């Protein structure tokens, strides 16, 4: 897992500053678009803890994302300092229940099992009154502790999402430099060797699974807060696959890959719907090209005068 180099960190920081100044110069619509990309980046980053760091490809991630979003609705929208930890807790506990079962399997079986468990969460909200109907519902936004005017909302949520993403990204950068982070990356390169070295591989994987689940819950919470809308579709496995695409698009080997990928994907979707009547066709062609030709992702692009590692 490559944490961005110093020039890379500077570029990311400059981009974050650029986004932070958007309320001064951008339209509400542009701010909402970037807000959506920030939430998507947060979600993809949560999955990167499993995919890029630990080498586990999971399709259950959207289930935890949706669970976090629904927590806001199910609690009846109390203030945000209650909903935010509650969403992370709910998603984390669900991951703690599903993880030990799913982690009994490996590779292909793990993929299928997480797909099935993710769909189980989806059905739990789609088929029962818990989800408030199959088409979703508008929810009351939790109070932020201060009043936000209708016109000020896009700016406030943009800054809020940016702040949360920056904190999570910074935290994960730090995590990757700790013993735990190195142990997770060890599992990705060679699981048997890590076991032979005396690490409790199963427990490490579970820690990664629960952490990723809780972060996905956080992303879901931010999505509910930003859009004031939840629907069972948030939990569907297509969303997990989309997050995997963001990771591949941005670069599986880099911690900042999912952030680049999320922005690229939102841009592609937006360009697709502006340029053609069939945005999903454009999306499909781009993904096919990405998986065929773009093996290192955007983060793998190098300036011409720099040699490849």
């Amino acid at each position, binding site marked *: 897992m490559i944490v961005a180099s110093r020039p890379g960190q500077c570029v990311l920081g400059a981009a974050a500053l650029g986004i932070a100044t958007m309320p001064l110069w951008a339209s509400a619509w542009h701010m909402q678009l970037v807000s959506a990309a920030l939430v998507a980046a947060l979600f993809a980053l949560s999955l990167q803890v499993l*995919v890029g760091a630990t080498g586990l*490809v999971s*399709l259950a991630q959207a289930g935890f994302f949706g669970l976090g979003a629904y927590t806001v609705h199910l609690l009846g929208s109390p203030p945000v300092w209650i909903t935010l930890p509650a969403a992370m807790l709910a998603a984390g506990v669900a991951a703690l229940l599903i993880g030990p*079962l*799913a982690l*009994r*399997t490996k*590779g*292909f*079986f793990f*993929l*299928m*099992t997480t*797909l*099935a*468990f993710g*769909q*189980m969460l*989806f*059905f*739990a909200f*789609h*088929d*029962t009154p818990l989800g408030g109907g199959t088409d979703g519902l508008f929810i009351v936004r939790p109070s932020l502790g201060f009043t936000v005017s209708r016109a000020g909302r896009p700016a406030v949520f943009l800054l809020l999402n940016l702040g949360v993403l920056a904190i999570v990204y910074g935290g994960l950068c730090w995590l990757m430099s700790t013993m735990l982070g190195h142990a997770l990356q060890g599992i990705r390169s060679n699981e048997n060797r890590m076991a032979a070295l005396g690490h409790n591989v199963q427990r490490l994987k579970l820690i990664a699974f629960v952490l990723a689940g809780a972060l996905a819950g956080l992303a879901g919470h931010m999505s509910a807060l930003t859009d004031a809308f939840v629907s069972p579709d948030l939990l569907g*496995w*297509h969303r997990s*696959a989309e997050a*995997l*695409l963001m*990771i*591949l698009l941005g670069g*599986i080997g880099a911690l900042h890959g999912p952030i680049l990928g999320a922005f690229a994907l939102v841009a592609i979707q937006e360009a697709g719907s502006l340029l053609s009547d*069939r945005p*999903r*066709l454009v*999306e*499909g*062609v781009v*993904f*096919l090209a*990405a*998986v*065929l030709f773009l093996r290192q992702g955007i983060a793998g692009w190098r300036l011409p005068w720099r040699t490849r590692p």
Partner: protein
Amino acid sequence: MLTGLIAQLLNGVQYGLLLFLISSGLTLIFGVMGVINLAHGSLFMIGAYLAFGVASLTGSLWLALPVAVLGGAVFGAVLERLLFRRFRTRAHLDQVLLTFALILLFEEGRSALAGNQFHSVPVPAVLDFSVPVIGGFGYSAYRLAVLAICLLVAAGLVWLIERTRIGSAIRAAAENTEMLNLLGFDAGRVHTLVFAGGTALAMLAGALAAPLQSVYPGMGDGFLILSFIVVVIGGLGSVAGAFWAALLVGLIDTLGKAYLPQAAGIAVCAMMAVVLLWRPTGLFSRT
């Protein structure tokens, strides 16, 4: 009450057999080639739309069945040669993304060619009657015919894999591709054959299912998830495992939808969780 139960049991068996046609392809493709195909549900959908197209053009569903099988075999062979062959040794993540891109392309292609409406395909006139079963109620003759066709295909598949030379080549390819090449077989051909066969089975299932339910966008999604569960329960690469697991899943899903509609989706997943706790590699796996 009792007659209702018998009808639901028959529905469950018939649903499970359709599920077997889909998941046997999925389990063979993974077992032999090591490729995860998330677009397998879309192949089912394409089969159903093909049946709808043929049936509305010619008025005969019987013609649609061979068209689906042959069309599926050709389509599968082309997909394998052009795309899946290159992804055999790639990471699972790449395979997931490739097949997800295919899902988007297939769904968009379907939307461009056939639109997004629901369609219905009439049951063939010959079979448009009910057969009296015990308890004096009638059961659709077409559903019984589907049941019989699926059983025939299942028997044929088991015979092909267990008793013929091609079948032993397929089983050998699942064990060791290089060894197969050394023995003088062309492993590439075996892969093409398996993928073409799996596609043909999924599209046949779609064509058979077309008159039973509406033909609609995303109709393969539910089948995809259930056939994944079937493969996990049955054990990877095991056709016999897929058969029994498909029957089990089909029965639980159908009975669940009839008697406990809120819990049907969860019941099947919960059963998978129990199997995973008990035997993480599936009920019929050899290891």
